[in-house]
């Protein structure tokens, strides 16, 4: 809560005003039956028509006050709710974008999405009712009770019995409803998951003739879901009829008590009995609102906790980039890295030295640690041990921003953002001209694709590049990377979805374009690595060989194994014998 309160601060005065207006509305609504009882007690009994009209006018004035206050609270409330939610969303969003990779991974993508959206929307919705309940219910309850007791204590006693009963019902219902909701959600998810799987795996399922089996699985989930939904709906829908019944029965009780009390208590009037019955009804409504608010408390608490958890993360402050042009030389000296909570080190005692302008490769299988090297170079993580130098300067002496300005990377999982092709490319260089975009695309072998669309560079890419194939995404991300002006270019498994023909064209043009700049090719393919100036072979986090292709074929069994499995025994024809 501590983290979220500051977001409410700008609205403090408005919240207080809001509360005051709610107070007015509630008091007015309580006074209506009171005035009506006067009409009965005085106006009708004495046949005093002017009095009735006066009281009527008074009631009309109250209604007007309620209308004005109601409109005003609505105005204020809609401002608070939408503003608070937007502020909080921005706060959380910016916080998340400032997180370190460790912090980011400690929560995870999908949970961060929920926290920055669903949780805040829930908070926005519920908090709205919360303020209302917080002000209205006590006023209604204590004001109504005071009015009821002032007419007759025995009549008012009905409240004392009724209130706990209503609360008890709501408590019993909400206590049992939570698990049912959880269960229903579980089965809804299961049903949807199975259907999603069936649609995605339709070929496999049909080839194994398992459609009936899958259908039964989905149907079972659907039935379980129905059972849970029915139970929770029945429970929820019981509250209203039950409380209505209780209210009605207590009205009967009040009539009976009223009849007895009227005969013994000279101060009690018939109008009082009628008014009290209406107070009780008003209080009853208030109680229901309160109970629902209380029922939502656990849910609200979870949301608040989850949001606060994100906000309380430290993050890193953005540093400014120094005006340094880094050289292209990369040095790793005895670098080790271990992910938080991981048992084994991802990298141990890595030494690498890539001279400026060289084309280097890191080759290894999945889990060999080759992508981790790329992450360390971009300072996504800091090495647990050892030193990294870029252009001869120790990482420790540079800001993150300076390092990232000096290195351009095409990531293993290319992120395409919703927007035009041009917008996606200009992320690499906001100042790039159209000609430069075209040139980069030609090198990345994606220009034909751009031209194949009428809109050209203004062709809209969908979220996560859903309208692109894997290879197209990779090539766009490569074009983006080379548009950025840097000293070092890292291609992290960037060619894996390209066929050899395309890759070979792309690499040839890339080499011409990036002449003089350092290239680091992270790959699983021997063919992608073999012509590089220097190749590092990684296996289980260690460098098990380094050198040129020819040297490695001779001295590094793991490299040779990779080569042979992918390209066959070396022969003059496949470039093996040199």
């Amino acid at each position, binding site marked *: 809560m501590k983290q979220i309160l500051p977001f409410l601060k700008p609205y403090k005065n408005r919240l207080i005003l809001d509360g005051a207006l709610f107070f007015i509305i509630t008091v007015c609504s309580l006074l209506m039956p009171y005035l009506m009882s006067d009409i*009965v007690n005085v106006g*009708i009994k004495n046949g*005093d*028509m002017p009095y*009735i009209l006066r009281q009527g006018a008074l*009631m*009309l004035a*109250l*209604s007007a006050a309620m209308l004005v206050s109601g409109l005003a609270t*609505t105005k204020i409330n*809609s401002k608070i*709710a*939408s503003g608070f*939610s937007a502020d909080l969303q*921005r706060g959380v*969003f910016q916080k998340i*974008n400032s997180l370190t990779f460790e912090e980011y991974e400690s929560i995870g993508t999908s949970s961060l*999405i929920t926290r920055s*959206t669903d949780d805040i929307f829930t908070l926005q919705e519920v908090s709205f009712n919360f303020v209302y309940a917080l002000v209205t219910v006590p006023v209604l309850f204590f004001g109504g009770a005071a009015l009821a007791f002032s007419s007759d204590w025995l009549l008012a006693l009905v409240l004392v019995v009724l209130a706990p009963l209503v609360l008890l019902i709501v408590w019993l219902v909400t206590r049992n409803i939570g698990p049912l909701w959880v269960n229903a959600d579980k089965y809804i998810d299961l049903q949807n*998951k*199975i259907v999603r799987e*069936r*649609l995605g795996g339709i*070929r*496999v*399922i*049909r080839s194994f003739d*398992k459609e009936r089996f899958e*259908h039964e699985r*989905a*149907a079972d989930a659907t039935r379980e879901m129905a059972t849970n939904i*029915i139970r929770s*709906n029945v429970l929820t829908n019981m509250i209203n009829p039950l409380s209505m019944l209780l209210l*009605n*029965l207590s009205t009967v009780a009040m*009539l*009976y008590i009223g009849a007895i009390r009227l005969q013994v208590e000279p101060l009690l009037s*018939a109008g009082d009995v*009628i008014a009290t019955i209406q107070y009780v009804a008003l209080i009853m409504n208030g109680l229901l609102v309160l109970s629902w608010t209380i029922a939502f408390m656990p849910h609200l608490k979870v949301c608040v906790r989850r949001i606060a958890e994100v906000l309380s993360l430290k993050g890193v402050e953005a540093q400014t980039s120094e005006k340094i042009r880094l050289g292209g030389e990369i040095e790793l000296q005895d670098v080790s890295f271990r992910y938080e909570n991981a048992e084994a080190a991802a990298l141990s005692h890595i030494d690498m030295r890539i001279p400026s302008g060289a084309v280097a490769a890191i080759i290894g299988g*999945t889990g060999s640690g080759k992508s981790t090297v790329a992450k360390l170079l971009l300072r996504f993580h800091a090495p647990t041990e050892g030193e990294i130098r870029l252009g001869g300067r120790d990482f420790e002496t540079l800001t993150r*921003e300076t390092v*990232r*300005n000096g290195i*351009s990377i095409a*990531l293993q999982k290319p*992120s395409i953002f919703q927007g035009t092709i041009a917008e996606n490319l200009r*992320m690499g260089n906001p100042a790039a001209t159209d000609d430069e975009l075209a040139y980069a695309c030609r090198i990345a072998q994606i220009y034909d694709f751009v031209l194949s669309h009428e809109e050209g560079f203004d062709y809209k890419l969908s979220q996560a590049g859903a309208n692109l194939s894997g290879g197209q995404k990779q090539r766009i991300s490569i074009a983006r990377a080379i548009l950025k002006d840097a000293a070092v270019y890292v291609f992290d498994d960037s060619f894996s979805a390209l066929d*050899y023909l*395309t*890759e*070979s064209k792309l690499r*040839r043009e890339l080499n011409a374009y990036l002449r003089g700049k350092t290239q680091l090719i992270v790959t699983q393919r021997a*063919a992608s690595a*073999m*012509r*590089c100036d220097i190749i590092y072979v990684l296996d289980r986090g260690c460098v098990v060989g380094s050198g040129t292709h020819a040297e490695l074929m001779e001295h590094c069994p793991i490299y040779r*194994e990779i080569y042979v*499995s*992918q390209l066959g025994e070396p022969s003059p024809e496949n*470039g093996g014998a040199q």
Partner: protein
Amino acid sequence: MKNAESTKKDRAKSTEERRETRIKSKKTLKRILQEAKPIRGWLLLTAFVSMVSVAMVLLGPELLGTQTNILYDYWANGTAIDMPYFIRRCLLLGGVYLLSGVCSLATMFIMNNVVSRLFTCELRIRISDKIRRLAVKFVDGTPKGEVISRMTNDVSVLGNTIHTILDLTVSGVLKLAGITIIVFTIQPVMALAVVILLPLSLTLASLISQRSQKHFADARKSIGDIYALNEEDFSGFATIKAYHLEARQKREHDRITEEAKGRLEKGFYLAGIVQPIVSLTNNVAYIAICILGGALAISGKMNVGEVVAFVLYAKLFAGPLESISSGLSTMQHTLASAGRIYDLLDREELELPEGRPLPQGGGHIRFEHVDFSYVPEKPLIRDLNIDVRPGQKVAIVGPTGGGKTTIVNLLMRFYDVNAGRITIDGVDTKAMERADLRAMFSMVLQDTWLFSGTIYENIAYGKEGATRQEVLEAARRAHIDHFVETLPEGYDTLINEESTNISSGQKQLLTIARAYLANRSILILDEATSNVDTRTEILIQQTMDELMRTRTSFVIAHRLSTIVNADTILVVNEGRIVEQGTHTELLAKNGFYAEIYNSQYALLN
């Protein structure tokens, strides 16, 4: 002039459209009624129960009014209270309330069970059953989310409407009619206050809320954008860091949240003012009753009890009016949902051929003059001829998008050829039942497909009634046994979307185990080991070779080393077999294949 004409045309067009939607709505409505047949009996029963409930509800204020009047008469005029009579009346009133409560609980209970179990649940199961028989083409061309949303959201919307349909029709209309009659018999002038004022306020309210709906719809769109942006931002976290996109993202986020804020505020405001306005009219009606009632009571034309009853009837009047107006406003929404559901249920199903000729032989496959395209305007495969003898290994190579997977789609009849035919041992695959045809194939695909279940279940998926021993043997052959045994729960480890303890390479090995267990006579390997690491690949190769030795097999692979020993290599480009032959033959030809093959060694010249 021209402008006026075009507006006229537009207007004509829109009336035409409106007419069409009306006809469509009517059709859908009819369909809903037809589909609700199984629950008709229950609906009638519930209608009867709710009629009882309505009667009791209408009786309440009348009884309460008379009781109150007895109290007033005693207090104002000193008329003695006949206590035994008064108590009897109290008990009667209590009984009426009790019965009405029990009836409404019963309606609620029946409707929940009937609608959820017999209607929505059954509808969902029918959709699930429909998916079984949909053409692959439809599934390929429809976003998964769309099918799922029809199955969940749209069915829910339809269910909710049916759920409230009785509230709307039976109790809603009966209550309104009953109250109108009663208040007019008590006092016509005052009745006017109720019957005119309240509907007026509700019309106003619904007009306002309609406008707020528009803002909410806009806001929902902005909120959708917020979700999309956040998802994109967080899943592209590394890119954002690498390219310093924080400021750009912040700008974008600020813009969208600002937009959503404005729309939400308007929506909240318009939705919010409905309440004060409704309560104003309710109050005005209340005051009117008090004043008029007071005047009439003074002149002796009405008693206090009747005034009280009137107040209560006025309160009861608002409820059904509200539910009817909200019911009508959601009707359009419901019809749209129902339309989407029935559209899915009415989709064309796969036709089943008659008779079940089964090919007898070792898997001799022929493509004869096959033409095919996914979309008619873009012919993809033209006059394709392939002849594969039993036990042969056929490799398919070529650039992405060239039509490699299409051949698999046709072979297994996920799609049907436009012209020509495909035969297995002389039998046209079109004459066979799809299930029989597919039972001849084992597939291992690049996109591994595992369902959420245990590792054991996923392997056993390949063979009905496989013994544990067979499953373990398959795992051993796929070289996944060691890995599975290192898992804390071994073969009982659950696989699901989030499971990060299994790499994509290991998933591929599981599908290889599954294919091994299935033991079919024709094998399709589409990039089957693309994610498997090199060392395991060497081990698995032996199993693969063994599998392929005795079977007709189709292999698609990027890594040319895996296909050099194929009996026939089909080089596919732009939907055509451009070359066909053995590795040596094709290299000697020095054509497209040679270009592809050499490109992998020519990466850095």
